[in-house]
């Protein structure tokens, strides 16, 4: 490789800003760098990086088709908020259900973001619109929801009578439950035994 081409390559690589041909030339003893720039541009064609000219200034950049590689997604376990858990439960027990219905059941307004989180988690989907005035969007659970909670179908969710028998319809001291059942918020070993869905997901992460 020609020494001038090498020098132009190194200069552009080390530069903190795009450089004009004149600036590069000033660096390299007033040599005519245009042929070198053209050669380099051709050299890098089809590689992971390329030499581009923008507004008469030259710089290296990564190939645009690889841009997605430079952003890596990292998954971090996060516990669903209380409100989101309630909304998820209501969707599961009452699906398909509109947002107004969810709010009626919960007795409080439900932030739009809460449903977004559940959809991002992949557990809730838009299941169409209800054919009533206003045509509200209705929501339902997804197969991922069943998979996460280790359910064959929604029928496996305990009914009201079972909830009552299990004491889950009694007003409870939240703090006591928290302390008794899950000293570590994310420690799945404290989960009920049939909570495989949770653990499967963690393995995938």
């Amino acid at each position: 490789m020609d020494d001038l081409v090498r020098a132009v390559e190194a200069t552009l690589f080390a530069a903190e800003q795009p450089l004009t041909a004149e600036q590069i030339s000033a660096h390299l003893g007033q040599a005519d760098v245009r042929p070198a720039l053209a050669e380099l541009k051709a050299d890098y064609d089809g590689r992971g990086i390329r030499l581009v000219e923008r507004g008469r200034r030259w710089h290296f950049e990564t190939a645009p088709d690889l841009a997605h590689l430079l952003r890596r997604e990292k998954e971090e376990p996060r516990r669903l908020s209380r409100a989101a858990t309630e909304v998820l439960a209501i969707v599961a027990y009452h699906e398909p259900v509109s947002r107004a219905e969810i709010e009626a059941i919960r007795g409080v307004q439900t932030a739009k973001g809460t449903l977004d989180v559940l959809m991002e988690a992949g557990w809730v989907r838009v299941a169409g619109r209800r054919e009533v005035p206003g045509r509200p969007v209705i929501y339902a659970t997804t197969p991922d929801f069943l998979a996460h909670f280790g359910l064959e179908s929604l029928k496996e969710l305990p009914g009201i009578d079972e909830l009552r028998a299990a004491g889950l319809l009694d007003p409870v001291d939240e703090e006591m439950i928290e302390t008794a059942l899950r000293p570590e918020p994310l420690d799945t070993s404290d989960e009920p035994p049939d909570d495989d869905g949770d653990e499967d997901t963690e393995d995938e992460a």
Partner: protein
Amino acid sequence: MDLPADLPAENAADMADDSAWDGEERAEARKETLHLEIDGWEGPLDLLLDLARRQKVDLRRISILELVDAYLTYVEEAEALRLELAADYLVMAAWLAYLKSALLLPKEEQPDPSPEELAMRLQLRLQRLGAMREAAARLMGRDRLGRDVFARGAPEGLRVERKALWQCSWYDLVRAYGDVKVRSQPVVHMVRERMVMTLDSAIARVASMLGVSLDWMELRDFLPPAQEAWANPQLRRSALASSFVAVLELARTGKAEIAQEETFGPLRLKALRP
């Protein structure tokens, strides 16, 4: 490796010092070049190394006696010039003087450990220090990132986008539904279901029984017999209350007559024929 090529000049000189040299000129050269730079040395070992280098031989072949003499001369001259010498220089001088005298003793009178052994150790220490000093110079003379070679000036950077992996357990889900249910149930004052005799049935019962009898009857006689379901005392109280209200109603509409002889006494009634 491209080591020797990129040595800086000062170090190249050091290398030359280490190569063999004509010993004849040594004493002369030392006298001329020995200069008293009190702050120039980093301790006695540093001074000794410099003096050893002036012998212009490999550090492994320096003459310890000559080195000791040079050091002692240095210290003496410093004292003559009334220069303040740090204690460790003087301690080193004392030790070197001792080493010299031990080296000059006949072999059989030499103490243990032998002065040769001590001289070797001193030599080794000088070599070690010399090696590190040379290594430092070579290191500094390398092509250094940010001075001789350069990383990319304006890297785009790699981004790690954090994505939440939502966690929720089966228990959390079911518990949450229970909580919603508990919270959203309409607040109704639910009286526990109780068997009562309704007012309507009491009126019907009292009216029909009044029609049968023409004599005064006690209110309690209108109650159902206290057996089976009607044995329940609560139900009996309800029946009594309802029957009383029924009698008042029948009296108001002119279908019955009520009489009570004394306070809390038996309440009697009979049909009033129009």
